[in-house]
């Protein structure tokens, strides 16, 4: 991919709530010699619609995403769940449409950020934007959907200026689950409380994840508790220069 190009699928949460994550990714990739573009008029991958069972509507959103990224050589996504949606659900959703083939091709060209860096570009050495101890939470879709637990850890353990400490129960859900978080807020919050207790037990300064949903949930819990731990996206950490 070096010397070539990638399109950023910034995702709805990334676009609206965490624009600095997108900015970091653009800078990171550019520093690695990748030409980055951002196809205009992006909205959302449709996962919230799909997960709540509104599949015809999700297919409508999938259709426009497939068209938007039709010419992209590679598509980089900052969230494991959105990458999962494109890679695993788009082909099925659009199977009986004119975009069936395009959906399968897009699925193959779409990568979650940590996977692009480690598995596509083969780059694992970065300088941290944050000093201190960091700990890593496995987002469910990235871990159990895309079977990725190594790449983010490789990047974090090699990260200059930061020390990676293990998070007890790192592979357990943070309780976000999209609309689950507001349909059953008490259950969602209790799952979160357990997660954050584990985070605090590590003594980390920074909690890292590769999914905007988990970061919204865990970050929202941490600031509410006035914790000293910051929740950051992997891209923000890696963007410390190289």
């Amino acid at each position, binding site marked *: 991919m070096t010397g070539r190009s990638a399109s950023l699928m*910034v995702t*709805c949460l990334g*676009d*609206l*709530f*965490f*624009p600095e994550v*997108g*900015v970091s990714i653009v800078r990171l990739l550019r520093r690695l010699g990748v030409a980055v573009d*951002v196809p*205009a*008029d*992006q*909205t*959302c991958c*449709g996962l919230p*619609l*799909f*997960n*709540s*069972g*509104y*599949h015809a*509507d*999700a297919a*409508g*959103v999938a259709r*426009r995403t497939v068209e938007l990224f039709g010419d992209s050589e590679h598509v980089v996504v900052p969230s494991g769940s959105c990458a999962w949606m494109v890679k695993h659900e788009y082909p099925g959703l659009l199977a009986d449409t004119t975009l069936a083939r395009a959906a399968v091709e897009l699925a193959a060209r779409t990568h979650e950020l940590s996977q692009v860096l480690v598995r596509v570009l083969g780059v694992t050495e970065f300088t941290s934007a944050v000093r201190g101890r960091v700990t890593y939470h496995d987002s*469910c*879709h990235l871990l*159990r*959907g895309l079977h990725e637990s190594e790449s983010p850890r490789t990047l974090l353990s090699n990260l200059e200026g930061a020390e990676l400490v293990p998070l007890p129960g790192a*592979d*357990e*859900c943070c*309780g*976000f*689950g*999209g*609309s*689950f*978080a*507001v*349909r*059953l*807020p*008490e*259950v*969602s*919050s*209790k*799952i*979160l409380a357990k997660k954050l207790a584990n985070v605090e037990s590590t003594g980390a300064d920074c909690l890292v994840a590769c999914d905007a949903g988990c970061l*919204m*949930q865990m*970050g*929202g*819990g941490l*600031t*509410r508790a006035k914790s000293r731990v910051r929740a950051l996206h992997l891209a923000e950490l890696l963007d410390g220069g190289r």
Partner: protein
Amino acid sequence: MSDAELATPFRQRAGSAMKDAFLQEALTIATTKFIGLRREAFASFPEGEALRDQARAIKEATLQRLDQHLETLIGNVERLGGHVHYAETSAEARSIIVDIAKRTGARMAVKSKSMATEEIHLNEALEAAGVTPVETDLGEYIIQLAHERPSHIIAPAIHKTKGQVAELFTRELKRPAEPDPEALTLIARGELREKFLQADLGISGANFAVAETGTVVLVTNEGNGRMVTSMPRVHVAVMGVEKVVPSFTDLMVFLAILAKSATGQKLSVYTSMVQGPRRAGELEGPDEFHLVLLDGGRIAQIDGPLREALSCLRCGACLNVCPVYRQIGGHAYGYTYPGPIGILLTAMLEGAPAVRDLAHASSLCGACADACPVRIDIPHMLIELRREVDDRKIAPWSERVAFKLLAGLLRRPWLYRLAARAGRIAQTPFARSGRIGRLPLVLGEWTRTRDLPPVAPRTFQERWATDRDLRA
């Protein structure tokens, strides 16, 4: 759970469960223990992964020709001198068993642990017919004394602490009991020995039934299953039709992974094989053996959306790892089968309207599918159930409208941009130092315990459109 209890919305039932300190203590201890034991069992069993695939393949192949395998099973059980009954519904199953009890003059029935008999609410029917049912699995015995229902597929009394069990024994058995598991087990053992000797009827479930030999297989840890199937004059085994496996070779594949998934044991302490009634020259076994095959909505799913759930071995692994189950326990779900697989089974047995809210009782984290010994894709089927609930307009209209609006917005970038701008204006009274602490309506459900990030002053796409530095 009674209709009155089910009238309480699921969210409230879950809320009450989370406020129950005893339940929370018991759940945390037990599920954490089960998770660790299962992990260790498979870590030291490299063949495990391939056997899981094989087990699933056997289940799939068996479902393809379920009628043939059932016919073979029926033929072999009858050849061995047993009687086979087919029940399309729970009510039919109950009346078949009550009739057997009446005809044989049974006054007391000892039972080994069986989710199928829980499913058909057999104990109430037996009591109404003047037959006293006695649960002999320790966990089932405890909840029968407490007049409760199982809250876990393999550990029915998982919601109770040892202290609570000691209090229960002291109160119900009228003898002092200490909160020591071994002492409590000895008390139960003493009580149950008498019952085994008195009972006329033994009722069991079946973990498997081997078609080619007519063998009903029970996987247990306490030995009570063996007593139930051999001491009383009459033995009735109740099983869902999907429990049939073609051969003993197939059975071995399941036995190799079942106990590891359930309790982390290599094998359960007892694997009992029952072949018909006592034959001439045999010293033990019942005079009569009956096998009740239960449909109860299963057959309809062979080519239905819940087909995969017919592969379930009832090991309970998905409950132990489920973040929702671990917080709320089994009773809050409200039906016989709790946890992630329980939602699917409830939909199968009770229909989609029963799971309108339960279908959303999952963050779709996928831990269940990972733990399932036969790799049932539970999250995907939960999504399919949500789809059915939406399509059939079982979901509340307000929710359906909200998602239609969201869909319209996500398909129109100009509307999406407008919504971002509107959100920025609307959030001003609520945003404090870069966080939103309190919002009205549905978003208030979020902000009660968590801050929400505000819509950024400039979205990424707005920055990309105007910042030359960023685009360069």
